[in-house]
């Protein structure tokens, strides 16, 4: 592609070396930032790591006045809200991707318009979803959705609580809205990378549109779609402001989906600056370190999966 002749002209080699050194330094800088993140978060939380050890992530007491900072309930809150978001967001996001890559070619106008509307979802800042969630969605969930769920599904522990609005379920719904564009955009790229010969072979056997998608396209794109899902998960785990508005901010272990909870991210924002003692600062930075490691693992796997699907084909144009 950009494979230029290896032997450089002597007249240009000095300028070439300078340019390569300068832009190479910028490329090194990108790596340095990630390394710096890990190092600084570890050093900033050292006091807390020393004090609580492994108890930090297994214990469930968060008591600033007594200087006890354990985060298990918040890890639980992050996992529950993210799982809800994937449960709702994956089918919808994948549906949008299928619409955009498999059908929009034929549906003109409306299809393209809907597609770019979904993309716009990603452009809305998360703090605005938070504001909307708090002032519009929360009352709606409290008045209509949650009483209904409680009436019909209250016999399960999941919905056995007083409807409050500010809770894990509402946070899950807001997160769903926010991860749909991630899942749909990446899945669409992956589906577009499926060679057309796959589809043509299936059509030539007399398959319907859906059978082509289901049997020839989706299996081929499986690992990429999995990657898109994990990217969505990464976004849900790291999402901060929107969740902070609606999750209810209660430090106890949540007892149902409609009880208030806390996530790792909202804990940081909400507790920040409430005290100035070094241990609580270190504890909040350690929460960031836990998030850092979660995000590193999640994004690493997602990127490997998505890259394998799209990188090789993307620039062939």
């Amino acid at each position, binding site marked *: *592609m*950009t494979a*230029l*002749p290896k032997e450089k*002209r002597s*007249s*240009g080699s000095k*300028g*070439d070396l*300078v*340019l*390569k050194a300068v*832009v190479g*330094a*910028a*490329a090194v800088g990108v790596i340095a930032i*990630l390394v*710096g*993140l890990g190092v600084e*978060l570890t050093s*900033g939380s050292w006091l807390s790591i020393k004090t609580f050890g492994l108890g930090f992530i297994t214990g469930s007491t968060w008591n600033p006045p007594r200087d006890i900072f354990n985060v298990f309930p918040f890890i639980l809150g992050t996992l529950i809200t993210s799982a809800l978001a994937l449960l709702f967001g994956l089918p*919808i*996001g994948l*549906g*949008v991707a*299928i*619409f955009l890559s498999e*059908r929009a070619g034929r549906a003109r106008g409306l299809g393209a318009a809907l597609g770019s509307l979904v*993309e716009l*979802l*990603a*452009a*809305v*800042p*998360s*703090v*605005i979803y938070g*504001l*909307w969630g708090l*002032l*519009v969605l929360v009352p709606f969930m409290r008045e209509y959705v949650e009483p209904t769920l409680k009436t019909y599904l209250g016999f399960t522990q999941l919905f056995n609580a007083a409807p409050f609005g500010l809770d894990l379920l509402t946070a899950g719904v807001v997160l769903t809205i926010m991860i749909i564009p991630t899942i*749909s*955009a990446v899945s669409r*790229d992956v589906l577009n990378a499926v060679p057309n010969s796959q589809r043509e072979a299936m059509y030539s056997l007399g398959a*319907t549109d*859906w*059978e082509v998608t289901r049997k020839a396209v989706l299996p081929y794109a499986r690992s990429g779609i999995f990657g898109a899902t994990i990217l969505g998960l990464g976004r849900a785990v790291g999402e*901060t402001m929107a969740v902070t*508005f609606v999750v209810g901010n209660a430090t106890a272990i949540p007892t149902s989906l409609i009880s208030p909870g806390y996530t790792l*991210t909202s804990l940081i*924002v909400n507790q*920040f*600056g409430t005290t100035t003692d070094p241990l609580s600062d270190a504890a*909040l930075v350690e929460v960031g370190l836990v998030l*850092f490691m979660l*995000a*590193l693992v999640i*994004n690493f796997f997602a990127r490997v999966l998505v*890259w394998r699907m799209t990188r090789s084909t993307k*620039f062939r144009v």
Partner: protein
Amino acid sequence: MTSINQTGRRQEWRRVFDRIMKGLVILAVVIAVIPLVLVVWDVVAQGLPAITLNFFTHNPPSPCSTGQIASGSAMCWGGILNGIEGSFLMVGMATLIAVPVGVGAGIYFSEWPESRLSFLSSFTNDVLAEFPTITIGLFIFVLIVETTRTFSAVAGATSLAIIMLPIVARTTEESLKLVPTTLREASMALGIPRWKTIFRIVISTGRSGLATGILLAIARAAGETAPLVVTAGYLNFPPTGLFQPTASIPYIIYNFGTGGDYANWTTTAWGAALALVVFMLILNLSVKLFIGRKFAGVRAEI
């Protein structure tokens, strides 16, 4: 004969199933679009009453009871001047840091793609682009806020710059890679050295893509809230220095939106949200003007 009959029924069922699945796919699109419509509708409907000329020239109001608001007390009305100035200051500084570094890294990814550093850095860049921004905020908190012992515009701008960097780098790479190889070869064949080729030919051909990346990065930074909470803090006045707490529009939305039952605070938050959305819309429209269809893929990446 029964087998023919069964085949016919199966064919029928396949067609119906095809229709059902197509319907479900369209339903998914409709469900995905509904929240966007609702959010935009509410932001416009609730935000418009807040927008007056004063809204852009005054600092946020004190909390007011409904009685005070009804009596028309002047202290109940305010705006987002401190946020506008703070946001412009911090996003501007962040752009100055992120653009040179990001464009540099992007040039390296696109022009030296075979090198090991390119692979490693480009992969890191993708990971960084999806990173929880609150962890980036905490990184800067430890690095700058704890050292200087104050929340500041410098700390806020640095965290925003780290958020912008991967976006600029990625879009630079993608738009430079779209420049035809033949152009590079033609230039090199004329004896023009590679660095001059890159500056004069490659970058100037790919510049609309570069501009797109920068605008997208600015849009992203302007809406970021979480990292600013732990780096820039808040001050109810416009910034007068670089090393003092600095307000921003998103922080105002957070602070006044969660500010309890004061109606004038909620109104301020909705108004700030509307201002932010309009700003985003302008940036997105500029992107649409800058880019042709060939950059459509670049957008989806972010």
